[in-house]
């Protein structure tokens, strides 16, 4: 076994686990901290992976693979599940034929996200079983186990990761590999067409399966009890369980590897075996709420520990019942737009023109910080267009004419297209202006490709490129203009002023490649390894 010993990140371990589980296709949408799962998977021999335009489409492609009888891994970050939630809740009813693992990466502490939502709530809400590894070895093992459980009960299964599992490197011993099952379509209309008449029994089947899986989790689930003391018991999941073991080496720790459905009977027995019991979990009081609802006698966690990441020090405080103010960590230097980033010119111009910017998700969100401080709103992927239109509909003319929706090329492909359809369909009285900052890559997450870049996940040429300007023109936008923000700033500024003064629907594309992508592409050109 030691000959296979390797130091790898949680994301690399999930990728290897998927390969060894006989996965036929990896699909997903990039999002920190999940992005490197598919990137690493695609580099493994014989493994095919692709980026979808967004998480909903990725999950749908995955469902198709699993309906066709073979195995798939679908990857996204926590907020991506919001986008994919529509198919998620119903594939839980239909179930799957081939194994389907949905790897979702949460970001407690928000190292690179707009919220710190806890994906365990999705497992419970949709009725999708969820595993949660604590380190890379468990990430590898549980990816394989998740495929097994998925096929045993014909259900999609979540693998919940977090920043500290995705991006930490720990030692992994890998083992055997499975064959990829051949795809073979077998018709099952009542099982897969969710009209109400077929969905009603499907819902009951789902709940029956979840009851069986809960029973399995109690008897065979990956929930080891570590230590033998009977004074303090700790129930913990994921990386928090490792902090807990270190924080109190004398405590008896029940380390939950499957967090939905919880092994409630085993948990209640564990609580009875100790004098005092605390739950150590990052994020929402998920285990606590379930355990208390089942009558479990546990000390409730203080509300302050819901926020941010845990570490050994914070876990010691929870165990000690310390609810005093925590020392604020000194602030480091905030991130900023790179020197030479073409977005800098665009934001300087929009600031000079006096725009109110309905913004979006990407590197350019950093324009909210000094020296620009130009962005007025930022909610979700693609939100810039709808939110800008809403303001245009109701504001008095003078204010309405200042509204500009600013969105990146990757985000536009993800969910800007429906915003354009809305704009053309429900046209504001004074028109609207969308600026697409087209740097030819998904820069924020680490320079991934998308349908508009002309290249696939592995940076090889795509058969066709989806054109930003062609799409906008075809959808009925009045004017579509393109400027280079490094060389044509005067014309760009004048066109922006003209568009704001007119009642037209205008899309202005500010097109210049990301400076980091230029460096990366040169490396690819030299045949060097890129991260």
């Amino acid at each position, binding site marked *: 076994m030691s000959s296979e010993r390797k130091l790898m990140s949680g994301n690399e371990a999930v990728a290897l686990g998927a390969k060894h589980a006989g996965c036929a296709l990896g699909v997903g949408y990039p999002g920190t901290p999940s992005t490197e799962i598919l990137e690493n998977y695609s580099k493994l021999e014989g493994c095919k992976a692709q980026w979808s335009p967004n998480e909903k489409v990725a999950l749908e492609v995955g469902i198709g693979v699993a309906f066709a009888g073979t195995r798939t891994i679908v990857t996204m970050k926590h907020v991506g599940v919001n986008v994919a939630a529509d198919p998620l809740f119903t594939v839980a009813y239909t179930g799957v034929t081939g194994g389907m693992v949905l790897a979702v990466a949460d970001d407690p502490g928000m190292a690179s996200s707009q919220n710190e939502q806890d994906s365990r709530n999705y497992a419970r809400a949709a009725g999708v079983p969820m595993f949660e590894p604590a380190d890379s070895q468990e990430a590898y093992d549980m990816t394989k186990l998740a495929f097994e459980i998925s096929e045993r009960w014909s259900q999609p299964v979540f693998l919940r990761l977090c920043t500290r599992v995705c*991006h930490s490197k720990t*030692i992994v011993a890998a083992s055997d590999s499975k064959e990829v099952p051949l795809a073979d379509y077998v018709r099952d209309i009542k099982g897969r067409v969710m009209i109400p008449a077929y969905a009603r029994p499907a819902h009951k089947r789902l709940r029956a399966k979840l009851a069986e899986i809960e029973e399995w989790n109690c008897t065979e689930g990956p929930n080891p009890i570590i230590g033998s003391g009977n004074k303090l018991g700790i129930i913990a999941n994921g*990386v928090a369980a490792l902090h807990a073991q270190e924080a109190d080496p004398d405590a008896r720790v029940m380390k939950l590897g499957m967090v939905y459905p919880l092994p409630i009977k085993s948990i209640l027995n564990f609580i009875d075996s100790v004098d005092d019991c605390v739950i150590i979990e990052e994020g929402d009081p998920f285990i606590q709420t379930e355990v208390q609802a089942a009558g479990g006698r546990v000390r409730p966690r203080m509300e302050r520990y819901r926020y941010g990441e845990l570490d*050994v*020090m914070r876990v010691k405080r929870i165990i000690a019942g310390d609810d005093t103010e925590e020392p604020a960590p000194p602030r*480091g230097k905030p*991130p*900023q737009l790179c020197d030479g980033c073409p977005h800098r010119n665009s934001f300087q111009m929009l600031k000079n023109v006096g725009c109110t910017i309905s913004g979006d998700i990407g*590197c350019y969100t950093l324009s909210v910080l000094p020296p620009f401080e130009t962005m007025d709103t930022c909610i979700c992927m693609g939100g810039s267009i709808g939110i800008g239109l809403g303001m245009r509909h109701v504001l008095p003319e003078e204010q309405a004419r200042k509204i500009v929706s600013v969105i990146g090329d990757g985000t536009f492909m993800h969910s800007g297209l429906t915003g354009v359809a809305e704009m053309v369909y429900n046209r504001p009285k004074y028109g609207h202006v969308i600026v697409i900052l087209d740097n030819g890559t998904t820069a924020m997450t680490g320079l991934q490709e998308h349908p508009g870049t002309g290249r696939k996940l592995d940076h090889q040429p795509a058969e066709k490129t989806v054109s930003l300007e062609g799409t906008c023109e075809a959808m009925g936008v009045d004017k579509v203009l393109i400027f280079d923000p490094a060389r044509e700033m005067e014309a760009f500024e004048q066109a922006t002023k003209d568009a704001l003064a007119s009642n037209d629907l205008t899309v202005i594309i500010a097109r210049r490649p990301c400076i980091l992508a230029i460096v990366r592409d040169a490396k690819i050109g030299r045949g060097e390894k890129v991260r």
Partner: protein
Amino acid sequence: MSKVTNVKFAGLGGQGILTCTDILGRVVFDLGNDVKKAEVHGMSQRGGSITSDLRFGDKVLSPMISAGQADYLVVLGEDQIEPNQHFMKAGGVLVKPSDFDAGRLSNKRTLNVALLGALSKHMEFSVEQWMSAIRQLFPERLVDVNEKAFHLGRGDSA
């Protein structure tokens, strides 16, 4: 519990923090230690503050170094001392660019590896073990310049 050594690296995105953490990680991994390395990237790629934690010993549990627990703090810039010194243990070792003549580096991008040279003076690993890790982690054309940077940081006569 057996002794765990905690090394925290701090700097700005793009300075090569993750690479130098990987090199030390490779040294201690090759010697048969349990190793955990935790880092945060994403937004931090855009020139913001970034830290990376490396823990090693017989058995490592948490991947993160809490306040007051770092045996070593390695900073890529003097401005990173203030926001990170609370991580240091009493008696911990601070390694910083002013420990050697960084102006003599032939390529300023090798500052990260020069700092490893400075760190290596406080650790028990042989120069050959460090060189082996450097050779494993850099493409061939960058090995020589990084080996020189390591020696400069370590204070070896050129």
